[in-house]
């Protein structure tokens, strides 16, 4: 982890990601907030590549930008009369205070702890990750696939309208 390029990329990514995340918080328009969210995801993928997890960086773009963001956009479009404003509830100030305190605590922990940093930063190839997922982590892997199936079936059942249910052959 050295070299001018990595440092430069880190600071640019930090700027982009934090500004985008602030944009999600501050923008009044829900659609703009979703687009800022997408920018946050892309910046996050950049961090993943910087941390030499290139497969996960690509998966981040593919899943978050290609699928989850599109789902969010879809949900925004499917709720047309709900208002497109992105306002806050009365709990904004308490939430801000709480999160500020939490941030202060975490930052204190980060700076105060003497982290055991390995001298030789390790890297994992996509093949190594796949190997690990299908040998050591195979049970959680299968559970994750079951979870995805359950989520798929569940969300289809949730959004079916009464007319569609009436059409179903019994």
């Amino acid at each position, binding site marked *: 982890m050295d070299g001018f390029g990595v440092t430069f990329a880190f600071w640019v990514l930090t700027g982009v990601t934090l500004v985008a995340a602030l944009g999600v918080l501050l923008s009044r328009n829900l659609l703009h907030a979703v687009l800022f969210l997408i920018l946050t995801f892309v910046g996050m993928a950049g961090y993943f590549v910087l941390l030499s997890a290139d497969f996960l960086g690509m998966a981040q*773009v*593919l899943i978050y930008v290609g699928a989850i963001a599109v789902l969010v956009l879809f949900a925004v479009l499917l709720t047309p009369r709900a208002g497109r404003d992105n306002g806050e509830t009365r709990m904004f100030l308490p939430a801000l205070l709480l999160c500020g305190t939490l941030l202060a605590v975490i930052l204190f922990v980060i700076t105060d702890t003497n982290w055991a940093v390995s001298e030789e930063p390790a890297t994992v190839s996509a093949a190594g990750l796949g190997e690990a997922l299908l040998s050591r982590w195979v049970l959680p892997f299968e559970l994750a696939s079951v979870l995805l199936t359950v989520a798929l079936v569940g969300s289809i059942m949730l959004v079916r309208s009464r007319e569609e249910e009436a059409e179903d052959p019994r």
Partner: protein
Amino acid sequence: MPAFLITNNWYDFRDLGNLSGKLLDLLDDALPFGVVYVIAALLGFVASFVIFVLPSQLFVGVYGERKLIGRIQSRYGPNRVGPFGLLQPIADAIKLMQKEALTPTSADRALMYLAPIVFVAPCVLLFAVIPFGPNMVFADIPVAIVYFLAVSSIPVLTTFMAGWSHNNKYSLFGAMRVVAMTISYELPLVLGMLGVVLFTATLGLQSTVLWQKEMDIWLVFLQPLAFAIFFLGASAELNRTPTDIAEAESEIVAGYLTEYSGMKWGLFYGMDIGYAIAAAAFGVTVFLGGWTFFGLEKWVPPWLIFIGKTYLFYFLFIWTRGTLPRLRIDQLMTFAWKFMLPIALLNLVIVATERMFWVEEKADDSIVYAFALINIIAAAAAIYGWSRALGYRPENTPQKARLVSEAGGFVPVDAHGEGSK
């Protein structure tokens, strides 16, 4: 034949990557530290985009496509500007630049201006991982296939931005159609590519090409189902005519492009062609052996082979565009979920079985030819069988014109008590 091996000397024009590598080495010595990275990126951009993609867009994408579609439809196509109408794309570009760029009063201005610009960037990024020759690849990253799939899913969001920003219902319809269709076609596309990755056991594009070179077989023979899925899915995601429901002018004016004019529309139009060329280059690299041609690459420069193959692949897109009618949106959705997804899953099962057999039995590498035979038969059987199961009956298609009563239809009786003729 060592005499014909591609060398690493800079004067070996069969691989221009040597020349640019030499150039960058010299610059690295001459310039201060770090500048060479910027120059390398610029050089890659110029080499892949300005020299290859832009002329391809103009002369293959605009001129060639219009000319070929004209011939398919018994017209002449562009033939007025310059010899054979060759300067038509340049005249079009000048015309587009002169046009006024209109902005609706209630539009979301920032998004509307941003959308065409963001649309261009992923197209440039896509060409970074395409190998044009043994050394002619800008970024030979180990996860290039996932990179390509990931970056090519970004333009959908741009299309959505464009459609939403106009505050026009036809634009919003177009945007929603794009989003729905992309989510549907992304699934079989990724599953199809997974079959390819299982066979080659690599995610890199250059290593996929080298695998095909080593095995002496193209992946299109090993993975005919995946190739079909890639071609159909790519042409759906690219919004090309049999599947261009996002801008179907007979239904929703021009979809997400309704309010765009001038060069903003031109950027969308040009980059649509750019994405099609990128998809063609990706398909050639993964399925058609990339820059190899069974040994011919030792004599002919590999990048010429690659460009030729890319144009041939692009011709397939033009051909389907010229001959097939546009599908309805529900037909496209049904096709993705009921036809392509099960076929892709079946392909994955077949490939996984074959790969396991290959690895577990430690079979000889020449077994890929047996696999190719099996897979081609399986592909034909799967496509035919599954389409019959979904209700495709070619024998019921009438061979000659039949009367309504002859075909078993209902003949209404008019007021005079006579059957209508």
